C-alpha cells in the first residue's frame, strides 16, 4: 500500500533521512521506532506528502506522491488521516466541531447525519459528554482521544500516528493503545505508529521497523523483532525494567 524507496531528506543543512526503504503492510499496524531525533516523524510526514523527499519515491498504491501535483495529492490524502503528537485540534472550535470538521469540509454527510456520526465517534473514544468543550479545557489524554475521533470519523484507509502517547502517564498510554487496537479491529485501517513506547508497542502492532542513522535498520513482525541479534537493535529495545515483554533481550 505505502512503499518508500531511497528517501533522502536534509533539513536545516542536516541530513535526516539517508536512503530509507520501507514497505508498510496493508491492513496492519506497523510501528516505527528509533532514537529521538532520527527522523521518524519526518518519515511519517513523507508518507502523507507534508514533506517531499530531496531524492527517492513515496508510492501509495503505485502512485509516486512525491512527483504529483497538489490537486492529485489532495485526492490521495482523502484516503488518509493523521493523529499528531500534539493532537493538533483546532483551538477555536469545540471538540464536537473539531470532529465534525473533516465531514463538513468534505461534505460527507448532511447536518443530521453528521451529528449522529460525530456523537457516535465521541462515544467510542470515551468523550461522549465532552463535545461542548474546547481543546484548552481537555487533558492530554482527552486531546489524543479527540484527535483520534477526528482521524477516524471519515473512515480513512490509512491512519498515521505521530507519537500518540507522548507525555501521557502509563495508564493513559495503555488506554490510548487499547483504543487504537480496538478501532483497528473495527475499521481495519492500515496504521503506522511512530512510538517510543518500548516494549509496550510490541504488543499492539503487527510489524516493527527501526530507523537508525537515517535508514531502516531492521523490520520484522513484532514478536520476532525482539529476537533480531543486531547489537544496535538490542541496545535500543533492551531496558531493565521490562522483564516479561523483553525477555529475549536478556539472551543476547
Amino acid at each position, binding site marked *: 500500500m505505502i512503499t518508500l524507496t531511497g528517501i533522502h531528506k536534509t533539513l536545516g543543512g542536516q541530513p535526516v533521512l539517508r536512503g530509507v526503504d520501507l514497505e508498510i503492510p496493508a491492513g496492519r499496524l506497523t510501528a516505527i521506532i528509533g532514537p529521538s531525533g532520527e527522523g521518524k516523524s519526518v518519515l511519517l*510526514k513523507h508518507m*502523507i*506528502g*507534508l514533506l517531499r523527499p530531496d531524492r527517492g519515491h513515496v508510492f501509495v498504491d503505485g502512485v509516486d506522491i512525491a512527483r504529483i501535483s*497538489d490537486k492529485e495529492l*489532495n*485526492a490521495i*490524502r*482523502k484516503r*488518509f*488521516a*493523521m493523529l*499528531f*503528537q*500534539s493532537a*493538533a*485540534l*483546532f*483551538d477555536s472550535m469545540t471538540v464536537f466541531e473539531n470532529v465534525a*470538521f*473533516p465531514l463538513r*469540509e*468534505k461534505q460527507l454527510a448532511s447536518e443530521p447525519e453528521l451529528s449522529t456520526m460525530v456523537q457516535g465517534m465521541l462515544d467510542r473514544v470515551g468523550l461522549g459528554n465532552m463535545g461542548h468543550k474546547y481543546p484548552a479545557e481537555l487533558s492530554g489524554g482527552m486531546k489524543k482521544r479527540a484527535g483520534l475521533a477526528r482521524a477516524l470519523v471519515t473512515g480513512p484507509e490509512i491512519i498515521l500516528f505521530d507519537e500518540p502517547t507522548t507525555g501521557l502517564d502509563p495508564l493513559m498510554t495503555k488506554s490510548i493503545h487499547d483504543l487504537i487496537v480496538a478501532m483497528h479491529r473495527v475499521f481495519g485501517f492500515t496504521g503506522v505508529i511512530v512510538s517510543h513506547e518500548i516494549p509496550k508497542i510490541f504488543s499492539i502492532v503487527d510489524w516493527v521497523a527501526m530507523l537508525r542513522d537515517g535508514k531502516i535498520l531492521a523490520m520484522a513482525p513484532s514478536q520476532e523483532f525482539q529476537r533480531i541479534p543486531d547489537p544496535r537493535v538490542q541496545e535500543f529495545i533492551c531496558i531493565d525494567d521490562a522483564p516479561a515483554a523483553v525477555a529475549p533481550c536478556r539472551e543476547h
Partner: protein
Amino acid sequence: MARIPVLAVRKIGAGTLLLIEEMGRMFLFLLRTLSWLCRPPFRFSLIVKQLHFVGFKSTFVVVLTSTFTGMVLGLQGYYSLRKFGSEALLGSAVALSMIRELGPVLASLMVTARAGSAMTAEIGIMRITEQIDALETMAINPLQYLITPKLVASVVGVPLLVAMFDIVGIWGGHLVGVNLLGVSSGSYWSSIESAVEWRDVYGGILKSISFGLIISWVCCYKGFYTTLSAEGLGKATTEAVVLTSVLILVWDYFLTSVLL
C-alpha cells in the same frame, strides 16, 4: 588583513541573497493566495467572521484615534491659519489632511497593531501546534482556508474603517475649531464642500484598499513561515508589525506621488 574586506563582502552578499529569497517567497505567497481566492469552495462565513474581527472589533480604537487626530488637527490648523487670517479654511485643511493622508495611514497603522499582529500570532500558533499540517492532511489548502478570508476581510474592512476615521476626524476638528475656538460652523462645512473633490476621496479609498492588502499579506506571511518556537513567534509578530508599518508609509509616498 586582506581577509576582513573579503569577509565583509561575503557577509553582505549572503545577506542580500537572503533578502532576495525572502522577497521572492513573499511574492509567491501572495500570488498563490490570490490564485486560491477565485477557486471554490467559497467560505463566506469565514470572511464574515474575519470582517467582524478586522473591521468591527477595530472600530473602537479607530474612533478613539481619529477623534483625537481630528481635534489636534483642528487645534494646530486654527492657530496656523489664524496667522494668515484664514480660519474659515479650517474645515478644508482638516478634511483634506484626513481624507488624503492621515485617515488611510493612521487607520491602517491602527489595524496593523490590533488585527495584523493578531493574524501573525494566530497563524503562527497554528503552525507551531501543527494545526496547519492537520488542515493539509485533510486535503484542505491552508492558504485558501486561513489566508484568503483574512485578505478579503482586510481589503474590504480597512477602507470602511478609513471612511469612519475620516468622518470622525472631521467631526473632531469641528469640535475643537467650531465648538471650542469659535470658527463659524457654516464656514467649516462650506470650506470642506468647496475644497474636497472626488479625486481626493478616490485616492484615499485606493490607498486604504492597498494598505488592507499589505496588512493581511505581510502579517499572514510572517505567521505562516514562523520558526517553530515561542521566541520565533514573538520575533515574527514584531517583524510583521514593523514591516507592515514601514511598507504602508513607503507605499503611501509612492501612491501620493502618482495620485497628486
